[in-house]
């Protein structure tokens, strides 16, 4: 092309682009951004990432394609714990009601009328599981494939819970069946969610992220409240007898209805490893899939709540969100792989917790926890000594209180941590036998009760460097004596009965091994906190 002609063509194109942009800016002012706090302007459509071009054919599926449970004698055994089963039935309507209202022009009433309707169901749970497709027919017609993806993972949710609540299967059979369920889920149809740890900062860092929680905090609180229940119930059920499961749900269920459903101040959605660390350690691929599913729910909510995104683009972004979370998008990738740090293919997990992707603002071994600050994921939350991993992981007791469940290194760490925490506490204390853990409940005043009053304890307090050796629980006198015989340093130790062990009052002394977990300064979720830190620096 002649150079002069090229000059004029380029100039005309540039002018044309500039005028069209100007005209668009004058006629269509950008709406306010509902997403990232502090940003007033909508991000603009050009910030939305494109839909991958080569999506598999099933992404266009809008037809009915009901899929159902794998056969098993355990199906619906969650009704052994009726109160929990009913609460889970109620959960099924929450998202559906909200989705239906959002796609039928009723979004304005989401935090009022819709909230009231969902809340009523949560407090008057149906006796049988409702079909979500009947609650959100318009949404289903529009986003059929999304509903299939949700349904398919909800079935895995329901069946794994049924297995854990079953009284017909042994622990070994339960373990085998959970793995078989995973295989069935992962291989039968293409709708599986990725079992890999995903980078939460990436998933929650899309141009539309956080729109829903900022715009509809009460309904979002309900969603995250029942996501909390869906996480917390797994450690409650894992390796427990039916009486233990019921005993725990008396405490957990009360907290769910009184507090967790109505919290609007969570910095992030509840993660499986925060609420069920034992299950997440044992079945990381399932915990990751459930977290990724919950994140997909959040992404869809955020897209639908972003008024600056036109309808056709919303449909594309929802398909992209499904793609991001799908197993299909991550074929051939493995936990720990990092193709792009902080991106879609960042599959690192938190240290000591294969069932949790890198958290937002986290370093590899500490994450910010609400009301707790920076907490280590691989160390005892009381004495900071490393927790057992892999085959030995079951030996770590857990303490559940205030909505979190944390792993500790020994029964003494559990008891002291519980005594230093407000409110009711649930302890899971393993004995020498993985099949005979002890459940202990602390009331508001720290009085302890157990399902197994015959349990015995060794407690020969010394440095916490070896607390997993000098503080242990035993299911019988024989087991205690065998331990002492093989550990001569405790040959003079007397076993403590449950009453004696429970009567020991916390001294308030800090474990000698405790080291404050260090993370980035301040609460990363709280901009106000950062401003305060800046002010302090200036003052100094």
């Amino acid at each position, binding site marked *: 092309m002649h150079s002069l002609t090229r000059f004029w063509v380029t100039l005309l194109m540039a002018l044309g682009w500039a005028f069209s942009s100007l005209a668009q800016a004058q006629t269509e002012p950008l709406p306010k951004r509902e997403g990232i706090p502090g940003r007033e302007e909508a991000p603009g459509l050009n910030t939305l990432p494109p839909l991958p071009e080569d999506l598999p054919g099933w992404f266009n599926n809008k037809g009915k394609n009901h899929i159902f449970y794998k056969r098993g004698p355990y199906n619906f055994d969650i009704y052994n714990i009726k109160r929990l089963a009913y609460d889970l039935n109620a959960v099924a309507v929450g998202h559906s009601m909200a989705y239906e209202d959002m796609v039928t022009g009723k979004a304005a009433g989401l935090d009022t009328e819709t909230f009231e309707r969902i809340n009523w169901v949560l407090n008057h749970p149906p006796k049988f599981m409702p079909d979500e497709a009947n609650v959100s027919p318009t949404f289903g017609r529009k986003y059929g494939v999304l509903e299939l993806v949700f349904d398919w993972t909800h079935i895995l949710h329901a069946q794994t819970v049924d297995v854990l609540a079953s009284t017909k299967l042994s622990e070994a059979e339960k373990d085998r069946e959970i793995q078989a369920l995973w295989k069935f889920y992962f291989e039968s149809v293409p709708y599986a969610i990725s079992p890999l740890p995903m980078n939460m900062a990436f998933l929650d860092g899309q141009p539309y992220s956080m729109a829903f929680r900022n715009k509809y905090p009460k309904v979002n609180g309900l969603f995250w409240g029942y996501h909390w229940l869906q996480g917390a119930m797994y450690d409650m059920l894992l390796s427990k007898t039916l009486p233990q499961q019921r005993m725990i749900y008396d405490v957990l269920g009360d907290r769910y209805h009184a507090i967790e459903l109505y919290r609007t101040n969570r910095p992030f959605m509840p993660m499986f490893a925060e609420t069920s660390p034992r299950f997440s350690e044992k079945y990381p691929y399932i915990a990751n899939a459930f977290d990724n599913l919950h994140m997909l729910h959040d992404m869809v909510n955020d897209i639908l709540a972003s008024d600056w995104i036109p309808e056709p683009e919303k449909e594309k972004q929802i398909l992209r969100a499904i793609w991001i979370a799908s197993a299909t998008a991550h074929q051939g990738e493995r936990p720990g792989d990092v193709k792009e740090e902080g991106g879609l293919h960042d599959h690192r997990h938190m240290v000591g917790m294969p069932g949790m992707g890198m958290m937002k603002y986290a370093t590899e071994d500490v994450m910010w926890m609400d*009301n*707790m*600050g920076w907490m280590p994921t691989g160390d005892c939350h*009381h004495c*900071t000594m490393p927790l057992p991993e892999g085959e030995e992981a079951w030996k770590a007791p857990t303490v559940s209180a205030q909505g979190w469940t944390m792993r500790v290194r020994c029964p003494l760490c559990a008891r002291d941590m519980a*005594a*230093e*925490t*407000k409110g009711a506490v649930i302890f899971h204390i393993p004995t020498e036998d993985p099949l005979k853990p002890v459940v202990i409940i602390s*009331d*508001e*005043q*720290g*009085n302890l009760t157990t399902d197994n009053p015959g349990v015995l304890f060794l407690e020969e307090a010394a*440095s*916490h*460097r070896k607390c997993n050796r000098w503080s242990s629980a035993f299911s019988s006198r024989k087991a205690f004596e065998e331990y002492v015989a093989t550990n001569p340093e405790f040959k003079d130790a007397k076993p403590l009965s449950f009453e004696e062990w429970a009567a020991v*009052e*916390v001294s*308030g002394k*800090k*474990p*000698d*091994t*405790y*080291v*404050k977990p260090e993370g980035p300064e301040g609460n990363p979720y709280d901009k106000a906190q950062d401003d*305060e830190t800046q002010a*302090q620096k200036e003052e100094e």
Partner: protein
Amino acid sequence: MKNRLVGKIWLGALAILLAFAPARSGRAHEAKCPHCEADVAQDTPEQDNEVALKYGKKRIEYRCVMCAIADAEKSYKGDLKILAPSEKKGKPVEISRIEGKWSAPESTVFIGHKIKHRYCERGYRAFTTMAAFTVHVEKNKAQLKGAKPITLAEIVQIAKSDVVEDKKEK
């Protein structure tokens, strides 16, 4: 041969040193205050700062005595004790609430001076005597200018109004 022997002696000495070395420096638990959600101020070699509320067998730590009293009013039914650090290291003032009635040793005075939250362990404290109060105010005169001693009843009242404010915010 000699070198090997020296090496062994060094290794032995190192092993003994490691065996008797203390564990990582024992830094205190640094949880969030259940009332104000700020970090619990830690004890220093010169001054105790950690406030403990004892409720049955529970022992919950707070950032300052005002937070502990406020949370006692808000969250706990029944009898309880608060161990409020005083001017004397290791000798907290024991404040009790028995059948709803608050009490503390007779000569106890408090400071309840509104101050930036990061310094609230200076602005809200217990003292075993009036003289100790005066020394504390003098030592922190830039921040505590004009601070007056208050009674237990008065600090309980301040704490109750904080609970009212806390509820309003929610």
